[in-house]
């Protein structure tokens, strides 16, 4: 029963992504959208437990608009249709904004 976390704010400016990580559980899915894309540069992202099997995704065009390079080994680049499908496949969604 994974939860979909839509992260729209970045941790340099706001507390939202930190709060997201406080409630993230094993097998949960995180999608960075809008200013959430900036979190790829934040140290907080390195605190995610690699054993927790958290899926990290980012909307490609949101990152491109912001000039953010995506490390394809760490992050899945997805599109808006993927996000819609994730909404339906997971058990609940929470938007961190």
């Amino acid at each position, binding site marked *: *029963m994974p*939860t979909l976390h839509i992260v729209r704010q970045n941790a340099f400016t706001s*507390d*939202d992504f*930190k*709060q997201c990580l*406080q*409630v*993230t*559980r094993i097998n949960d899915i995180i999608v960075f959208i809008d200013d959430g894309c900036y979190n790829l540069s934040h140290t907080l992202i390195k605190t995610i437990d690699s054993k927790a099997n958290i899926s990290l995704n980012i909307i490609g065009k949101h990152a491109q608009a912001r000039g953010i390079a995506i490390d394809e080994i760490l992050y899945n680049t997805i599109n808006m249709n993927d996000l819609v499908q994730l909404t339906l496949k997971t*058990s*609940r*969604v*929470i*938007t*961190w*904004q």
Partner: protein
Amino acid sequence: MTQNSKKLTAIVNSKAPYSNTAGKDSLDIALIFGSFEQPISLFFQGDGVWQLLQGQDGSNISVKDYLKTFAAFEFYDIENIYVCQDSLTERNLTHYFHIDDVAVLENKEFAEKLAIHQTILRF
């Protein structure tokens, strides 16, 4: 109401009480769910925990103190109220709240409680 009346809704409160409308907007939703006899749980995390702090008085800043309405939660059968222990600790706050029956939870429990809900809104 329509089908699925057992659906569980949670609201996560993440903002301090006065400088913006988030806390009041969240409360309005909670009370509507309560008055429609729909289950609603309230979570307080981050700066949202300031909403529960004892000894606040909005009259000092000409604000209609919506926090006093929290006392009506019982009347509306809003009984699931959870607070993030980490957020309290970070702010050096104690467990003295202006309402009763608030459950203070560690991150893992807080996350588990949140995950029993089908709908989650956050303000």
